[in-house]
């Protein structure tokens, strides 16, 4: 997996090129020299905690925020001097921004004025959009007569009727309850696949980003940390921040002891000596690095396993039963924080009390070597 991996249904032609884009308010750097490409037909997410600059970047694409430096190209055209109302993008706002004085049909048809269509054609297009977002028969309703999910669909239809090259979505599912949100996630994905328009989706919810996206840009403090597919981000995070942000992770401080035949010898505080594939990385002797492993990659044993596989002995500190799976915390000498292990309860629920010796094993490729931030 590498950063250049693109989605199966996306061509390799970038629809959006972000080049050295920066934004500063006085001395505060809101966006720091971001460069990346978003491919045609891709479902691309900007993921990060609030204040990371993801919404600012999205609003720059829409034209609501100016750029302090750099340039944004949409379909090859530089966008600096193009006002929002002339950009080939449309946006779904976080609060949907449904016009309160217009009914659903007029909201959806708002952008059609300039096309000077005959009335029948206009009505036909609106009906088609109503069908697409499954709101047939709702055309005469007012915004305040709709539920949150329905308002969201109106906002979506209103933006899509103009057939934009890119659809921008600013945390559109944030205001919905969990069940509705999951349902809308599936619908968004289906919609995006069927119409083939590039979606740029802002969210702070990592699960949502993983579910929906072809690729995700993880942002922090105005910078993009990593751009990758959901699998790439989860299985091969590059830095500790990314690993920490996506899912759960056990981290171990380590030092490179040496390199032999494409393998690096590491000195890990908890594990002792360890050998990992160096896979073209720049690890050199003496580097202080970080080794990480996902809780679900560790396997727990009640007795010492056969020798030959790497094994770590510890004491079971706490068991948390969560129904479909259980969480274990194992304290290991030489390791400050207990190691988290997650296991499916596919057999019987875990038995045996805490405070007993346990052994952990893991597949060799589950260990991730992280760059220092």
């Amino acid at each position: 997996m590498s950063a250049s991996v693109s989605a199966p249904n996306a061509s390799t032609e970038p629809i959006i090129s972000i080049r050295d884009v920066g934004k500063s308010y006085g001395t505060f750097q809101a966006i720091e020299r971001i460069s990346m490409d978003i491919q045609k037909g891709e479902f691309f997410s900007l993921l990060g905690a609030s204040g990371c600059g993801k919404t600012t970047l999205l609003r720059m694409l829409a034209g609501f925020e100016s750029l302090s430096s750099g340039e944004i190209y949409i379909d090859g055209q530089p966008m600096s001097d193009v006002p929002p109302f002339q950009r080939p993008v449309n946006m779904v706002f976080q609060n949907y921004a449904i016009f309160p004085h217009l009914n659903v049909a007029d909201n959806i048809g708002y952008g059609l004025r300039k096309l000077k269509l005959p009335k029948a054609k206009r009505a036909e297009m609106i009906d088609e959009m109503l069908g697409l977002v499954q709101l047939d028969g709702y055309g005469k309703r007012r915004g305040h007569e709709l539920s949150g999910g329905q308002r969201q669909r109106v906002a979506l239809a209103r933006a899509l009727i103009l057939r934009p090259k890119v659809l921008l979505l600013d945390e559109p599912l944030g205001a919905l309850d969990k069940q509705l949100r999951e349902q809308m996630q599936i619908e968004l994905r289906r919609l995006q696949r069927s119409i083939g328009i590039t979606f740029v989706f802002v969210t702070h919810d990592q699960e949502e980003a993983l579910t929906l996206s072809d690729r995700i840009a993880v942002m922090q403090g105005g910078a993009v940390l990593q751009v990758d597919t959901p699998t790439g981000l989860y299985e091969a995070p590059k830095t500790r921040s990314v690993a920490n942000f996506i899912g759960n992770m056990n981290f171990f401080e380590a030092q490179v002891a040496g390199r032999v035949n494409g393998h690096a010898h590491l000195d890990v505080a908890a594990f002792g000596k360890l050998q990992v594939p160096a896979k073209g990385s720049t690890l050199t002797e003496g580097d202080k690095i970080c080794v990480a492993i996902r809780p679900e990659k560790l396997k727990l044993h009640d007795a010492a396993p056969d020798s030959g596989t790497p094994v770590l002995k510890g004491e079971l500190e706490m068991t948390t039963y969560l129904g479909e799976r259980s969480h274990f915390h194992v304290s290991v000498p030489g390791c400050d924080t207990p190691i988290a292990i997650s296991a499916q309860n596919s057999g019987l629920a875990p038995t045996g009390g805490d405070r007993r010796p346990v052994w952990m094993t893991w597949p060799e490729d589950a260990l991730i070597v992280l760059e220092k931030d």
Partner: protein
Amino acid sequence: MKSGSYIRQPNRALQVYAILFLVVLYTPVLFIPLFSFNDSIYVRFPLQGFTLDWYKDLWTRDTVWAALGNSLTVGFWVSITSTALGLVAARAITRYRVPGQSAIVTFAMLPLVIPGVIFGVALLVLMSRLGVPLSLYTVAFGHLIICLPFAIATLLPRFEGFDRSMDEASADLGENGWWTFWRVTFPIVAPGVVASLLLTFTISFDEFIMTFFLSGTDTTLPIYIWTQLRFPREFPSVLALSSIILAVSFVLVFVALWIGRMGLVRDLNVPQQEA
């Protein structure tokens, strides 16, 4: 708990107070229509009998019609101008960050508290210094100063409740500033505009002090009424005229408030979401 929630329980003392307040406020006013139908030139009890003569008498007087025409003309233009200016001001106040903004707003609102006499005298001095002859134009100018704060105060809440993402959504859907104003901003604040038009018209129509200082040979209805007070025989006709003005003013203000409320109710149904 008896009925409803704690806060909705009837408060007897408050009801009595409210009724008393209204009685004290409106009883003197009610004498005006009462005596306008009284068949006597003297305003005193007992009432002499019902008559519509005073109203008929008004009908035949050209000076009343002239004064009414002047009042309507001035009121029409003043309400339109002050509402248009108030619209621009309210939008600017809520939309842009201007240095010294609160000072500007305070100054725009100042005519509300400055006595009309002072403003009237000041404007009279200014007009005579500039050599501007007193006419209905100077009257309208004086009314404009009085009405502008009311227009701003009526329109400001509508703009303050205006979600900025509405403008952005319109721009995003391809409309420039001009079209956005006419397709989104104006329709949303329209109830405020109507309320402002009616309110400023009423204020201009009823205004006396500024008009007194600034009018030339053409007068408005309130000035006409005042000049007629010198003639006891004319007094019942003045009462009849006052009754008509009272009724029309009441209807206009009521309609203005009602329209403002309808707009508010419509928009309150839209749940506000914080970003």
